[in-house]
């Protein structure tokens, strides 16, 4: 099995090349089979690798020397251990379901664009696999950049729409800002340790000074804030909803945004050495939870609500990382991948049925038209709200318990975030699926349940959202039932969470569930009959405008930069540099027009010039001594 490791990323790459290069000649059917097939095979191999890793421990495969210079040797190697095989399963498993879903969702695209879409999707899966399978930080960085590129390509998939292109550029630039921090962190590691291979770095981590560790981890975390949409670099993710809905599900919910969590969980040995960094991560995480959750309450675009919910849930993961609950964070990555992919795909199904309508104010009462989508969406909402026994409950509870052990204030804020989560999810659910239909007659006429290629992934993900959490049942419920912790033991060696009495733990769970249930009941009672159809005022308007963060960034960073660029363009470039260049040209033109007059065709004037020149030359010849001394005085 371990000989097949390289096939896992290679197959999606092959799918990308085939679909991308032959997009004009392949039929849609062939593209679908290739696009989904390579991911399915990669998933099956990952499954085999999972069992092998479970039985025999990590597999490290080194293929060739990627960089081999004096003092630095970086091999091209894959490291398949508990953490990466888990991510591989999520990426290829959820990825496969989304590929299948896409074959139906994107069916109205013309064939070359259909193939282009699938080739990008495959390239994304390839990059993401490279990211999680790489045996050192450089391979991780290659995948890291690759997913950024694919994100750009897929957000801007409908490239004829200028707004979508701006959204794509925004995502790319925001990611690049984070990547600079990440790259600096890597350079710092190379400078101090001379190696990037995980095993060597973690073994030598003890030699690093406190400043080095804090600097490196903070810089790597800056990269994670870009990729995983944390404050202050999160604004690209809601705009990334410009891409097709399955893309939002795959990239901006289930996989790419979890890259930051993966990277920090992978580097848990480094992060646990710096208390400063851990506190920074925890604070950024909880701030992101609350900021995004409050924004989500007032959004009316079905995908925007889910986008802010993604940002908020990523905040939970970072809160977990910050308080040392690495297992909990990775667990939440997994459950979140299930239910968020489910919610996005469900939203896609709704958007599809509504004829590309995304405004929930124009929906309502979809329950009776789309039973499968409705039930699966409801399950997803329950999972994300943290209602037992759905998967979200277990992962969120683990993070919240760890937060309580670290600092009860974090727990209170986290529970408040969970209440907001339950509230906005059921606001979305009630407005979309309950009540009466508020769209046009035309739309009502066309309402229908989506075809099998869409509903089957929904059902699969709904089942996973329901049972996915059961592998991580906390010890307080059933002792020694937490297979998840046990599996990740070899990688996450630094998890240190203070033990607390069982009664406290039960109480924490009861409080968070009770708060979520109350929030759900309020939301259902409030929005089923009387959904918010008007533009929100006051505080609501402030939230609906996303705290004016985009406007703030525009005012503080974008506009000054534009003004500076305008200054350089209009003043320095146009008058300065262009002025010099054009001035030289104009001077040559003018002077040549004047000098041209000398060439009059009058033989007499030619001879006159000749004689004058001879006289001058003779004078110079006679006086050359004086001229020489004169010139030598000047120069």
């Amino acid at each position, binding site marked *: 099995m371990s000989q097949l490791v390289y096939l896992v990323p290679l197959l999606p790459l092959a799918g990308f090349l085939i679909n991308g290069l032959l997009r004009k000649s392949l039929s849609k059917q062939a593209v679908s089979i290739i696009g989904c097939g390579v991911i399915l095979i990669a998933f099956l191999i990952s499954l085999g690798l999972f069992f092998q890793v479970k039985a025999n421990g990590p597999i490290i495969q080194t293929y060739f020397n990627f960089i081999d210079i004096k003092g630095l040797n970086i091999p091209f190697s894959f490291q398949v251990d508990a953490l990466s095989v888990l991510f591989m399963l999520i990426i290829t498993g959820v990825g496969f379901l989304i590929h299948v879903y896409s074959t139906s969702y994107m069916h109205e695209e013309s064939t070359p664009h259909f193939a282009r879409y699938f080739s990008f999707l495959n390239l994304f899966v390839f990059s993401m696999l490279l990211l999680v399978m790489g045996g050192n930080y450089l391979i991780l960085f290659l995948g890291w950049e690759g997913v950024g590129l694919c994100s750009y390509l897929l957000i801007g998939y409908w490239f004829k729409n200028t707004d979508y292109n701006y959204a794509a550029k925004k995502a790319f630039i925001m990611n690049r800002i984070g990547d600079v921090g990440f790259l600096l962190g890597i350079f710092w590691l190379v400078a101090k340790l001379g190696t990037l291979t995980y095993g060597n770095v973690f073994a030598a981590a003890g030699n690093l000074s406190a400043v080095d560790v804090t600097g490196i981890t903070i810089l790597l975390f800056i990269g994670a804030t870009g990729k995983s949409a944390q404050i202050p670099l999160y604004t690209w993710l809601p705009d990334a909803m410009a891409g097709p809905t399955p893309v939002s599900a795959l990239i901006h919910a289930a996989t790419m945004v979890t890259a930051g969590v993966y990277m920090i969980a992978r580097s848990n040995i480094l992060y646990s050495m710096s208390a400063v960094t851990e506190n920074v991560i925890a604070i950024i995480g909880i701030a992101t939870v609350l900021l995004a959750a409050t924004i989500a309450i007032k959004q009316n675009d079905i995908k925007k609500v889910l986008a802010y919910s993604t940002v908020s849930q990523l905040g939970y993961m970072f809160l977990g990382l910050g308080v040392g609950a690495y297992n909990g964070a990775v667990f939440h990555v997994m459950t979140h991948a299930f239910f968020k992919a489910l919610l996005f795909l469900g939203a896609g199904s709704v958007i599809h049925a509504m004829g590309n309508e995304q405004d929930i104010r124009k929906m309502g009462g979809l329950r009776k038209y789309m039973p499968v989508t409705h039930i699966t969406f409801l399950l997803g909402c329950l999972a994300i709200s943290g209602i037992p026994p759905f998967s979200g409950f277990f992962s969120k509870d683990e993070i919240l318990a760890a937060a309580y052990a670290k600092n009860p204030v974090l727990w209170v804020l986290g529970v408040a975030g969970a209440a907001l989560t339950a509230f906005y999810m059921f606001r979305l659910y009630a407005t979309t699926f309950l009540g009466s239909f508020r769209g046009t007659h035309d739309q009502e006429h066309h309402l229908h349940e989506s075809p099998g290629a869409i509903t089957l992934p929904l059902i699969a993900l709904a089942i996973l959202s329901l049972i996915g959490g059961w592998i991580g049942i906390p010890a307080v419920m059933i002792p020694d039932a937490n297979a998840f912790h046990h599996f990740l033991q070899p990688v996450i060696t630094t998890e240190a969470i203070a033990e607390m009495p069982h009664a406290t733990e039960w109480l924490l769970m009861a409080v968070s569930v009770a708060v979520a249930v109350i929030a759900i009941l309020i939301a259902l009672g409030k929005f089923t009959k009387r959904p918010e159809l008007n533009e929100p005022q006051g505080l609501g308007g402030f939230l609906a405008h996303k705290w004016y963060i985009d406007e703030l960034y525009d005012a503080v960073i974008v506009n000054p930069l534009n003004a500076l660029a305008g200054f350089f363009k209009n003043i320095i470039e146009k008058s300065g540099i262009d002025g010099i260049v054009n001035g030289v040209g104009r001077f040559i033109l003018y002077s040549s027009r004047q000098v041209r007059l000398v060439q009059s*065709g009058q033989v*007499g004037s030619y*001879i006159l010039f000749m004689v004058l020149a001879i006289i001058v030359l003779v004078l110079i010849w006679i006086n050359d001594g004086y001229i020489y001394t004169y010139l030598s005085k000047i120069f």
Partner: protein
Amino acid sequence: MPIQYYIYLSLALFCIGIAGVLTRRNAIIIFMSVELMLNAVNLLLVAFSKMHHAVATAVDKVNNVGTDGQIFVFFVMVVAAAEVSVGLAIIVMMYRNAHSVDVNFLNRLKN
């Protein structure tokens, strides 16, 4: 007779030639002025050569020592004669075409 007189005469002739070339438009007069300059140079050559011969015979008792300049003058004359014949032929052709020997009519190639 001191060499300066020859130089002054020759310089005067040369300047008259230049002035003639610069100021006159009649091609034949320009030609004559050119000849005047040539002859100014010839005169100088002969004068220097004579002076040089007088000095050189004091050192070397050969008859024709230091007379290169005088011989060179013959070459100048030959070349000048050839030049005149070509030049006059051009002037004849010019007169046939333009019915004038004014050099300012020679700018027809312009534009």
